[in-house]
């Protein structure tokens, strides 16, 4: 007779809270009248995120490898990443709360009378909230999962809702649906790679857990062909999620097509989650074969940085530009992965925060710049925005500067810490590449700033909508975090020093 497994729910509570809230959200969809749903969903989601955050804070000093029968590791870095994801998700939710960005009726054919009447009736697809919560739960699980099965499940839990939500834009629905299709097909494709890699890792070590794989490296008398195949294919899956070149190609299209709040949420949180998982896998599972994978990941890091930065130069769409920017940043974080040290981990964690908030802020501002047919994403039409709305333009420029790594913004500290960690671990070449790429990247960030402030304002229908209070709060948070962490990063770094460890 089996004894009941001990799951240690206190440690899993944050994820369970989110999942519970998601279920509640599904029930709300089923049983609550349409008029109330939206507000109720927002409330449930935000409260759940806050509650999960609080619960995480409460258990922050606990560590465990036995929670969930060893499927997850509760350790400093894990908790930290979860906290980051929740914080970013909170801001993301504030944008998502502006349901005006989502289609009134996803099943209605774009342009049909049905759609028009749905819009007229004020319908809303409030399912985005439970979907978002599911995604958040997956994101939280992904970086703390310690076996390949849980990893795979978590990967899917975070991905499926995102596939769906990408297709829910209110305007330009054809594009949005196309984004969903592309994201889904390529995502499933990459999942297959992930799984194939997982199989070979299992084949090599006889274990699905990261520790088991690490042990396998020690004990196995075999050559490492299976291991290498496993690492490569698993990496492909992960690199896809983080948007590293050459597995990046979905990024611009999906970022452009998806509803902007979702893009922001996805860009910030997925990156943190996927990189969190990646860090754990490489730090814990593949630590002892680092000489096999470091050159490969280094090369990918360089290609990613350079490609992202260069390709962004000629982009004319603000969301695509931000997508390429996110690719570049993925390259930078990869540098931290390659550093394979406590400082590298800390740097990566900090980078999640600095990049995440800046990204959320930037996409938040994208939601504000509109004409009668919705958001304006053509950069040419952003020209002269500074004259129309200096505050919004300033905030956007701030985020650009943070992306560019200008001192006194969080982005700079992020880059600095990544470079430092990399340098420390001897990867000076990567630092040099990183530095040069930063210069190229600055080129387009600054061009945007230039255009916004000094471009000729075209007297067209561009307006900057008065943001809803929630959006306003969200953007403000992003601005404050970006500046505060730029000026006084010790707020984070002091705690990172105690937290940035993985349990083995």
């Amino acid at each position, binding site marked *: 007779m089996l004894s009941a497994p001990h799951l240690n729910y206190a440690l899993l509570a944050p994820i369970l809270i989110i999942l519970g809230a998601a279920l509640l959200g599904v029930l709300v969809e089923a049983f609550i009248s349409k008029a109330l749903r939206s507000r109720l969903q927002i409330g449930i989601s935000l409260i759940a995120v806050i509650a999960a955050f609080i619960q995480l804070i409460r258990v922050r000093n606990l560590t465990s490898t036995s929670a969930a029968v060893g499927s997850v590791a509760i350790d400093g870095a894990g908790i930290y990443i979860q906290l980051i994801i929740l914080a970013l998700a909170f801001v993301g939710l504030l944008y998502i709360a502006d349901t005006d960005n989502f289609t009134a009726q*996803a*099943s209605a*054919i*774009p342009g049909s009378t049905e759609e028009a009447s749905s819009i007229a009736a004020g319908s809303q697809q409030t399912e985005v909230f439970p979907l978002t919560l599911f995604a958040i739960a997956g994101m939280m699980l992904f970086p703390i999962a310690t076996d*390949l*099965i849980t990893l*795979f*499940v978590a990967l*899917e839990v975070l991905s*499926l809702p995102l*596939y*769906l939500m990408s*297709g829910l834009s209110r305007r330009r*629905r*054809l*594009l949005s*649906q*196309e*984004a*969903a*299709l*592309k994201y*889904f*097909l390529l995502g*499933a*494709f990459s*999942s*297959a*790679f992930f*799984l*194939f890699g*997982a*199989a*070979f890792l*299992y*084949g090599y070590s*006889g*274990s*699905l857990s990261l520790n088991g794989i690490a042990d396998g490296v020690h004990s196995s008398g075999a050559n490492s062909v299976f291991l290498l195949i496993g690492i490569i294919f698993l990496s492909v899956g992960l690199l896809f999620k983080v948007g590293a070149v050459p597995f990046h190609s979905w990024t*611009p*299209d999906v970022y*452009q*097509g998806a509803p902007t709040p979702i893009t922001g949420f996805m860009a910030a949180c997925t990156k943190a989650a996927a990189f969190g998982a990646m860090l754990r896998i490489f730090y814990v599972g593949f630590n002892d074969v680092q000489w096999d994978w470091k050159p490969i990941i280094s090369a990918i890091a360089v290609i990613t940085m350079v490609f992202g930065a260069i390709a962004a130069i000629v982009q004319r769409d603000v969301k695509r530009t931000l997508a390429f920017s996110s690719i570049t940043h993925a390259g930078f974080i990869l540098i931290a992965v390659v550093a394979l040290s406590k400082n590298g981990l800390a740097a990566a964690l900090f980078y999640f925060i600095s990049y995440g908030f800046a990204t959320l802020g930037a996409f938040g501002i994208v939601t504000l710049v509109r004409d009668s047919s919705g958001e304006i994403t053509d950069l040419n039409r952003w020209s002269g925005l500074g004259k129309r709305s200096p505050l919004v333009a300033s905030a956007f420029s701030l985020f650009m500067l943070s992306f560019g790594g200008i001192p006194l913004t969080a982005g700079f500290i992020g880059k600095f810490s990544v470079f430092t960690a990399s340098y420390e671990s001897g990867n000076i070449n990567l630092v040099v590449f990183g530095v040069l790429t930063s210069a190229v990247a600055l080129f387009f960030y600054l061009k945007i700033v230039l255009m916004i402030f000094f471009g000729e304002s075209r007297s067209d229908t561009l307006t900057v909508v008065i943001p809803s209070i929630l959006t306003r709060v969200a953007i403000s948070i992003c601005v404050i975090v970006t500046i505060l962490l730029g000026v006084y990063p010790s707020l984070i770094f002091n705690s990172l020093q105690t937290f940035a460890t993985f349990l083995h």
Partner: protein
Amino acid sequence: MDIANYLYLSAALFTIGAVGVIVRRNAIVVFMCVELMLNAANLAFVTFSRLNGNLDGQVASFFTMVVAACEVVVGLAIIVTIFRSRRSASVDDASLLKR
């Protein structure tokens, strides 16, 4: 015959699946090719399970099936949506987002 043959088969099917994704245009066929890749991975899992003498691989394989099922639901829903708005299930037609 040796067990490695299963792995070769798995690799072959995986490759075929990948090629299918690249060359086929019908979204559903593309997706089926992805399923083929998942199946190839499953075969590898089962083979390795036997090789390593533990059941973890089979468990993984089982989870894959479940997950794949969910994926199929979502995926097909998306494909249907696309089809409804464009009257086409060709992935090449969905190429408005570019450059």
